[in-house]
């Protein structure tokens, strides 16, 4: 029925099967929309946040999707700036995943603020001292860049490509994509860093506060680095999941291995830096504020296990797997590594948001724990479900994976 839209030389499942799949995910979207409307119409009393937990699941989700969406800017950087030619076979998909991550982040932010209709104040009445201001500007601009990077792919649709104007537009956009990739890297370095700065500048919160280099706390650099390091792992994870769902090999092993190797070394050096940062904070920064390490990890939920889980399980282990040839060539180990890496960076963002809120600061304060309401959960899953639909539609109608035809010849 929709065969005229499907790229030449590839096979897709029958439309009813595809539609059934979309309907299932669509039901999840509706669940998310219900939660979103409740939050918008009735207010944030629909959440389980409170005055001690002003930042919670949503802010974590924002930080996490932007971190894992970092695969887009870093893969673009490797492909267009460093000229890693092989990565042209995965950069489209990295951009697609990135677009979804960033749209999701902005959607969640739109629900998270108490007065969404005043959201434009952050641009109009911008406070240049606030890390959130930098996040808002760079994040919005970068989403624009990602959409520009995504447009040429859309223009490659069989029917759109028949129109000479769109064909030429797509071709010309490809030619200048390095400029947008460079812009994306510049913007990403700032908003990824600023998201780290959001927690790092809080000198009233010794758990997340870090020393500065000029105006930037160390978390600024760690967040940028970790997004560049872990983001490609998420791109690989999404590629592998797509391959499982479609039952096809979509990207050649040498492409995955190259990205995995670069990601592995990036994670390796990041996690050494993170460990050093943790040591310095525990030995100098926190004691100067009257705290020792145990003060931050003496809770039932927030014990030291979380530190080990982040640094060892979600850091050193995936790094060591990915930097060894045997590790990244073994499918099971590769899966393990990209899953652990995604878990590690998400856990880091959780800790920097939620543990910061939970840990007591006043000597007579107690830990405050929190569990999200269904409205928070559904609205957090909403962009994920929307992302699945966008990826599915893109995969079905656009040549997202340039090697698909070669890897899956039709008889």
């Amino acid at each position, binding site marked *: 029925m929709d065969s005229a839209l499907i790229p030449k030389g590839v096979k897709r499942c029958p439309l009813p099967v595809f539609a059934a799949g979309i309907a299932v995910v669509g039901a999840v979207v509706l669940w998310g929309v219900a939660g979103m409307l409740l939050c918008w119409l009735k207010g944030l009393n629909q959440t389980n946040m*409170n*005055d001690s937990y002003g930042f919670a699941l949503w802010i974590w989700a924002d930080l996490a999707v932007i971190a894992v969406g970092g695969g887009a800017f870093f893969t673009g950087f490797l492909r267009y700036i460093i000229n890693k030619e092989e990565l042209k076979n995965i950069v489209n998909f990295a951009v697609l995943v990135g677009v979804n991550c960033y749209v999701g982040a902005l959607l969640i932010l739109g629900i998270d603020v108490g007065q969404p209709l005043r959201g434009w104040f952050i641009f109009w009445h911008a406070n240049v001292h606030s890390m959130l201001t930098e996040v*808002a500007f760079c994040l919005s601009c970068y989403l624009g860049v990602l959409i520009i990077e995504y447009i040429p792919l859309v223009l490659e649709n069989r029917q759109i490509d028949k129109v000479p104007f769109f064909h030429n537009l797509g071709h010309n956009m490809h030619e200048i994509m390095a400029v947008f990739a460079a812009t994306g890297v510049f913007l990403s370095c700032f908003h990824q860093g600023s998201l780290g700065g959001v927690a790092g500048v809080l000198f009233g919160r010794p758990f997340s506060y870090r020393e500065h280099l000029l105006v930037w706390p160390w978390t600024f650099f760690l967040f940028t680095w970790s997004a560049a390091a872990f983001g490609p792992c998420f791109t690989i994870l999404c590629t592998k999941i797509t391959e499982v769902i479609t039952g096809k090999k979509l990207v050649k092993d040498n492409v995955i291995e190259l990205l995995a190797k670069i990601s592995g070394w990036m994670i390796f050096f990041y996690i050494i830096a993170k460990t050093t940062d943790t040591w310095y904070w525990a030995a100098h920064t926190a004691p100067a504020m*009257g705290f020792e390490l145990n003060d931050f990890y003496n809770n039932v939920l927030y014990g030291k296990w979380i530190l080990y889980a982040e640094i060892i399980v979600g850091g050193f282990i995936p790094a060591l797997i990915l930097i060894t040839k045997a590790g990244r060539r073994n499918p099971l180990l590769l899966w393990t590594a990209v899953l652990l890496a995604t878990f590690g960076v998400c856990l880091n963002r959780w800790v920097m948001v939620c543990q910061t809120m939970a840990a007591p600061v006043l000597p007579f304060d107690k830990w405050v724990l929190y569990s999200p309401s269904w409205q928070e959960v559904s609205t957090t899953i909403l962009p994920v479900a929307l992302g699945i639909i966008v990826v599915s539609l893109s995969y079905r109608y656009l040549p997202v994976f340039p090697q698909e035809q070669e890897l899956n010849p039709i008889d």
Partner: protein
Amino acid sequence: MKVDTKQKKFGMAIDLDKCTGCGSCMVACMSENNVPFKKDETNKLDSITWIKVYKVTNDKKYPDTDLCYIPRPCMHCDGQHGHAPCVSVCPAVATDNDKSTGVVSQIYTRCFGCRYCMAACPYHARYFNWWDPVWPEGMEKYLSPNVSPRMRGVVEKCSFCFHRYQLAMDKAYVEGRRELREDEYQTSCTQACPAGAITFGDLNNPKHTVHKMVQPDNKHHGKPKNPKAFRLLERLGTNAKVYYLSDRKWVRKLGDNQTPNEESSKKH
């Protein structure tokens, strides 16, 4: 007419040895500032209390048991380099540290409810309006006309009853004055405290009682010279304008965090 350019620094000194924990300050504050309340106030984590009274003990058994009540308004921090923890992070300049009075204000119509300021405040002095304010029938007639009620989705906090300052200044201007007498601008909690535990005034004015009590050292970020005075979380560098006084060492010690190493080295 002479224009006053002298910088004021309004602040508070709370004598914890006088505070009985009666909560009058909280009631007066809510009434004065149109602070909304819920039908069921069981969950204190989303209740709005611009000034909140904490109860702390020395954790000793009878007969050595001792307790103390710590009223905690907004600390109106000066922070480091003039940036209070909350002021510097607000992305829309909805909160401001007024250099002429030292009062940290909250602009309700500017706030878009991101709650970053709440995350930044170590004192939990900032509150989010999770609901629209609903007053029991007839009570709206008793709201203060000088303070705007806040809508759902914005952050609010203690303003040191700034509207009282504005009213007092209006009166002074009409009378041809540019300076207020000490008693002309007092917060509602100060006036409501039956034990006289709260003292309010200009920390920069040596004639004001609050200055005499605290003896702030402006060369060292306002650290009190009075050995019985202290500020909550002094080491974080929030540079608060609310001071506490107590003769009891354990109370003063409770004002800030100390690592076990520091405690043991002090004992030796």
